[in-house]
């Protein structure tokens, strides 16, 4: 059975005046995503989730650590092998207004990956692949093939991006906030499409979002990131039912919901600067349940149950 292993650390360097400061964008993150799994990475802005995704996708080089796809370290591949890998791993981005070349019509947008990878030797074959890709995202080829991005709504553009990703017959899809810029009434359609595609094509997903409710709807297992580190991991439903890390608990209680009387998120202040992380636990300054040890010792991920791990001194 194939497995996707990702073991990595990362830093991103920034230069500030004459001193080099480091943004610890991703700091010692380990992830394992199994074949056919629907895995979620939850985090707010600055958590490092997009950087993590970019390292897994082979776009951003990790400062430390490795990314294994089926046992192969993708960062050791030769450029021709890396190119072949790109057929297998595709990405869907957050901004459907930015991810499409405004000068290309839908046909040429979808044809581009085929040309790059030499898929479909004749124009007819390529047209066939493009049409099938559009059909799989519920867009009638005859209606959309000649359209340009400005003639499409946000939801339609995102469908085109998904179709484009499917043209290379990928195994693994990394989705970075694919619906957060879309209207609410359109989101569910895209999410359901993604769920259906996964089943039908046997895909593996890494689904990234800051929205806990969408995470719950979409994923089977998830990890919660805070300031470059994973603070909690486990079955999605398990984390929703019983969030253990105080940060996860705060996220949970912060979600607005007119149907219940909720407690406001009991968290103080805002996230610290990524170049100036506190000692000890990243979250301790804001944590309503902090203890002495949290100030000096960074907690490690610890198995609370067989499927639920959490990095918090409260549980040791």
């Amino acid at each position: 059975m194939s497995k996707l292993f990702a073991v990595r650390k990362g830093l991103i360097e920034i230069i500030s005046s004459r001193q080099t400061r480091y943004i610890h964008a991703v700091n010692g993150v380990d992830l394992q995503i199994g074949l056919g799994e629907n895995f979620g990475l939850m985090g707010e802005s600055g958590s490092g989730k997009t950087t993590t995704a970019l390292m897994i996708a082979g776009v951003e080089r990790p400062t430390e650590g490795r990314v294994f796809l089926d046992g192969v370290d993708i960062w050791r591949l030769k450029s021709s092998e890396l190119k072949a890998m790109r057929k297998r791993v595709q990405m869907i981005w957050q901004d459907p207004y930015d991810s499409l070349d405004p000068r290309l019509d839908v046909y040429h947008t979808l044809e581009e990956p085929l040309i790059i990878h030499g898929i479909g030797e004749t124009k007819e074959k390529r047209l066939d692949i493009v049409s099938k890709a559009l059909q799989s995202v519920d867009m009638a080829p005859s209606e959309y093939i000649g359209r340009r991005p400005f003639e499409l709504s946000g939801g339609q553009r995102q469908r085109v991006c998904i179709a484009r990703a499917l043209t290379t017959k990928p195994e693994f899809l990394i989705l970075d906030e694919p619906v957060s810029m879309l209207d609410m009434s359109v989101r569910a359609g895209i999410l359901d499409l993604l769920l259906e595609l996964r089943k039908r094509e046997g895909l593996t997903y890494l689904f990234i979002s800051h929205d806990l409710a969408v995470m719950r709807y979409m994923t089977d297992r998830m990890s919660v990131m805070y300031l470059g580190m994973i603070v909690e991991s486990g079955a999605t439903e398990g984390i929703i039912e019983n969030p253990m890390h105080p940060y996860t608990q705060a996220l949970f209680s912060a979600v607005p919901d007119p149907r219940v009387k909720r407690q406001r998120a009991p968290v103080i202040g805002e996230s610290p600067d990524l170049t100036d992380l506190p000692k000890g636990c990243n979250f301790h300054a804001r944590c309503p349940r902090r203890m002495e040890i949290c100030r000096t010792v960074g907690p490690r991920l610890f198995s609370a149950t067989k499927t639920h791990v959490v990095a918090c001194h409260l549980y040791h």
Partner: protein
Amino acid sequence: MLDIADLSVVYRGYRGVLKAVDKVSLAVEDNEVFGITGESGCGKSTLAASILRVLPQSAEVTSGRILFRGIDLRSVSEAEMRKIRWKQISIVFQNAMNALDPVYKIKDLLKEPLRVHEGMPDEETKRRVGEVLNLVRISQSRMDSYPHELSGGTRQRVMIAMALICRPQLVIADEFTTGLDVIVQDQILADIEDLRQKLGFAMILITHDLSVILEACDRVAVMYGGRILETADSKSILQDPRHPYTRALLDSMPTIRDAKKKLRSLSGSPPDMLNPPTGCRFMSRCTFATQLCQTDPPNLQVGVGRYSRCHYALDQGFKRR
């Protein structure tokens, strides 16, 4: 306090005339939190800008009345409007990063409304700035910071401070927590509610996030295609929506607290406002539409302070099919 009647606003461009706001009527009471929700292109931001007369050049108010405490905001002079703007009605925008002038320190940004709208001398402004920073819980040490040195949440608080510094009676908040992390959003919403109770002002809260609207607002107007399709108190909207679009929005909200449910979404897209349909704006995406819907639905009164623009609004609600 604010009475908008039959307001229409268009944008004139080379492609034609875009009917952004089409005969919108609403009323906001003193100390009320009134929500306007709707998706992209529904006209809610244009509506907000028209209240304060800060529409771009290409826009024109073609009909209607905006009465603020009996004053017709459409007919007063610009000099008069400047006295109302910020002093009586202020606005908090989305994306504080783009709305705050990056070359000014926070204290100077905050002084500006006092100078322009109140003609306040410099010595006095210092005290008021200090006061308002306290109100929005920003440390005094931040007075000399520049916007780029502050976090997103703090910048948003600065925007709120700017909107409150002249002690207005009505604050319009246009997507003011969009783009903020959910924990920061929660804190800011709680803080502004505390401030509202303390200082006593009414608020028009505009956001596409239905959960936020229903939690924070007393009454809500749901906009679509330049029109208000339904107006009601939050509880009624949640429990007894009288418009299929409201129903569809409720059905598209994923939850984390209840049992997991199947979401429903709308196919198609919002109407082309250059050539809006002649019948009901929502017809093409409505699962309850009939032949009757080809005629423009009237604004039916469904209850006390409750209205809906649907031929079937008086029937027993729109249960999921």
